[in-house]
């Protein structure tokens, strides 16, 4: 364990190291989210790439994750989204927006004692599926919801 860590650290700095640490299984995504901004994950351009960058291999669909968001958002600049996970041992909740140029929007680490239920507002460029990725007890789960975005007119 120590030997391979030394090898990994010798090979370079920045995002490259993190990727190697992920691959070596030495650092888990949950750890990193609390530290360095996950440049690699935030710059991915598709949901599958983002999931891979987050170390979420083969997430299982789950009905225990609820995405509360409007079916239609009048303006994509501000779309309210709340995600609640009823999965025991929820460690993190991550929000991805499929049609955005970079799907990874936000990732929340839920320490023990905090409810697995976060609410925020995001920008959605066009009608799109939004995904909630939950890590619970070391495993990944996924839920999705479609949100339609309209154009506003004048007035109001």
């Amino acid at each position, binding site marked *: 364990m120590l030997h391979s860590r030394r090898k990994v650290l010798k090979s370079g700095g920045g995002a490259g190291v993190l990727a190697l640490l992920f691959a070596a299984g030495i650092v888990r995504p949950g750890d990193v*989210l*609390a530290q360095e*901004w*996950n440049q690699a994950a*935030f710059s991915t351009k598709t949901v599958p790439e983002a999931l891979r960058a987050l170390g979420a291999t083969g997430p299982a669909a789950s009905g225990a994750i609820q995405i509360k968001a409007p079916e239609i958002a009048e303006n994509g*600049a*501000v*779309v*309210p989204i*709340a995600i609640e996970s009823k999965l025991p041992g929820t460690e993190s909740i991550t929000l991805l*927006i499929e049609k*955005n*140029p*970079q799907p*990874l*929007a*936000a*990732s*929340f*680490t*839920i*320490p023990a*004692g*905090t*409810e697995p*239920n*976060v*609410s*925020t*507002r*995001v*920008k*959605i460029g066009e009608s799109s599926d939004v995904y909630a990725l939950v890590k619970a007890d070391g495993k990944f789960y996924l839920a999705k919801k479609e949100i339609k975005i309209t154009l506003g007119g004048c007035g109001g």
Partner: protein
Amino acid sequence: MADPMRIRAAARDGTVNVRVLMAHEMETGQRKDSAGNLVPAHFISKVTATHQGKTVLSAQWGPAVAKNPFLEFNFKGGQKGDKIVVTWEDNKGDKRSDEAVIN
């Protein structure tokens, strides 16, 4: 120094509901200004909330979070009169930390 956040924290039955409004442009880096130049990305990238030194929420954000971000979460173990501290850091290294008393 960035504008202060509005933090509201209310305790009920042992659970504290926290709602935060942050003042930030959250520029995606894809918008063009009236002269046709790209406005550089400028967004909150990390958020931490602590209660008596313990982290009760941490987050990493990208520029897709809406301008003047809103955040709401709940944690157990806080009481009326306790302080909660919320800190954000953006991609340019600016930081802002504000505290609120739980009522």
